[in-house]
């Protein structure tokens, strides 16, 4: 057949089978050239208002510039996930949102980082008040060595004058919101350190939301948990999204795909691409994003 010989379709003209080593060394051009996307940028959800506005944001550790000209609108009451290889700047970015970097003397930043009109970079912004508005959940559960009740009550006691009866209500509501109440309601006075890892992480989430934050930041919140506890936290994140703006850093791309509305890909200190999570995982516009989410690097 004359037409067959013109292209690599016929078995005769197919290159001989290549072993895995050869393929990784020189991937076929068809698998690497693919996205030459022509579609216009797709705004994730234009109608949703912005909780955190980031413009021309740069951050340094000493002379090392960790973030370059980041531009991002974090939508209100949505889950935004930050993905990227280690050292790409995503955790640095997260830490700037609640001024965790204040504790690092060589850390500095410029540009705009604004939460509902509050300038997060201004020295006039009180970091203690800011951390009430912006809660944080860390990679390893870090409950205080106190009772379950006192862990949740700690923040409200610090920030508000509150009657004991109201505090009890608040603790219960926070534990319910963190999907932990039914498991701990009969042992509120026991040490938090006796809880399982997954329960401790949910306790930390309850503790974070007890002070009524607007934003909850999560830095790889499931990386120390087993699959079942991870699934519970992910359910919880979807639930919390109704009331809180959530920004989550994760190395688990399946997790980003499962829980987030918006995904931002960072690479070498730059925000490469932000888009609706479904778009980032089906049709990213940027070649580097494509290579990262498909596991070609990183």
């Amino acid at each position, binding site marked *: *057949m004359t*037409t*067959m010989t*013109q*292209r*690599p*379709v*016929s*078995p005769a003209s*197919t290159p001989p*089978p*290549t072993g*895995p080593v050869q*393929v*990784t060394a020189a*991937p*076929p051009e*068809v*698998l690497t*050239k*693919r*996205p*030459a*996307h*022509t*579609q216009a940028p797709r705004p994730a959800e234009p109608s949703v208002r912005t909780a955190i506005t980031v413009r021309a944001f740069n951050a340094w550790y000493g002379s090392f510039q960790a973030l370059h000209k980041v531009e991002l609108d974090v939508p209100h009451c949505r889950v935004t996930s930050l993905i990227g290889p280690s050292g790409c700047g995503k955790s640095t970015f997260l830490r700037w949102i609640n001024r965790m970097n204040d504790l690092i003397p060589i850390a500095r930043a410029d540009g705009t980082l604004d939460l509902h009109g509050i300038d997060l970079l201004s020295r006039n912004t009180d970091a203690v008040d800011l951390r009430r508005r912006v809660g944080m959940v860390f990679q390893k559960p870090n409950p205080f060595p106190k009772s379950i009740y006192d862990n949740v009550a700690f923040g409200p006691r610090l920030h508000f004058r509150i009657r004991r009866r109201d505090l009890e209500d608040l603790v219960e509501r926070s534990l319910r919101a963190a999907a932990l109440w039914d498991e701990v309601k009969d042992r509120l006075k026991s040490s938090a350190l006796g809880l399982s890892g997954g329960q401790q992480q949910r306790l930390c989430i309850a503790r974070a939301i007890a002070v009524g934050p607007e934003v909850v930041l999560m830095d790889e919140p499931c990386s120390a948990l087993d699959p079942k506890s991870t699934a519970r936290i992910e359910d919880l994140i979807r639930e919390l999204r109704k009331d809180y703006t959530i920004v989550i850093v994760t190395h688990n*791309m*399946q997790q980003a*795909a499962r829980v987030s509305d918006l995904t931002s890909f960072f690479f070498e200190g730059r925000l490469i691409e932000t888009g609706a999570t479904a778009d*980032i*995982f*089906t*049709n*990213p516009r940027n070649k580097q*994003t*494509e290579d990262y*989410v*498909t*596991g*070609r690097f990183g």
Partner: protein
Amino acid sequence: MGMNLVTELVEVRRSILSMAAIVEQQIDRAITALRSMDIALARLVKAGDDEINNLEIEIENECLRIFALTHPVAGDLRFMMAVLRINSNLERIGDKAKSIAKRIIDLVDCAPVRLPPALIEMAGKTRTMLGDALTALANEDADLGRRVRVSDDPVDALQREVFNWGHREIPAHVEATHAVIDVLSIGRALERVADLSAAIAEDVIFLVEGSIVRHQPPE
């Protein structure tokens, strides 16, 4: 994970292109058999369909394994989705080659009928559409895919001509009714091959650009 996604994708790509080559050969032979009323070639086409059916199952199993074990995303995900759809469309094209072959075998025993020129022209255009759709797949060429979509309309028009020929032919030559029905069936099968080629072209556009153009008029 037990499997390297890149290697697996190369393999599945090779499988779908091999299947495409076999299906294209089946259609090529069916059309040659039609032009020359070659019964031996038609029998060869009829016998060749089993291989395509087996390949379809093999490729589907390959895809299932890749989905289950590697969770492809982005371009890989679109590639896998396109392969699954193209796999099934290639198998249907194979079926059409077989039904054309069966009608050719049947025609030989019927009262003789002169094939309408529109049918021969249709066969040529359909053959080109399929060839272009598969070239678009092999080269991941969305522009060629778009051109294939456009070329479906002339084939539809030719099929209407073949039908009109049938309407005239049956009253004029009642004894040839059986043969005319065979010819109309061949026309219908060719028209379906053109449709399925356009569907493959649409999957190529999806694979390359991520946009679903199905059910939209060609640009």
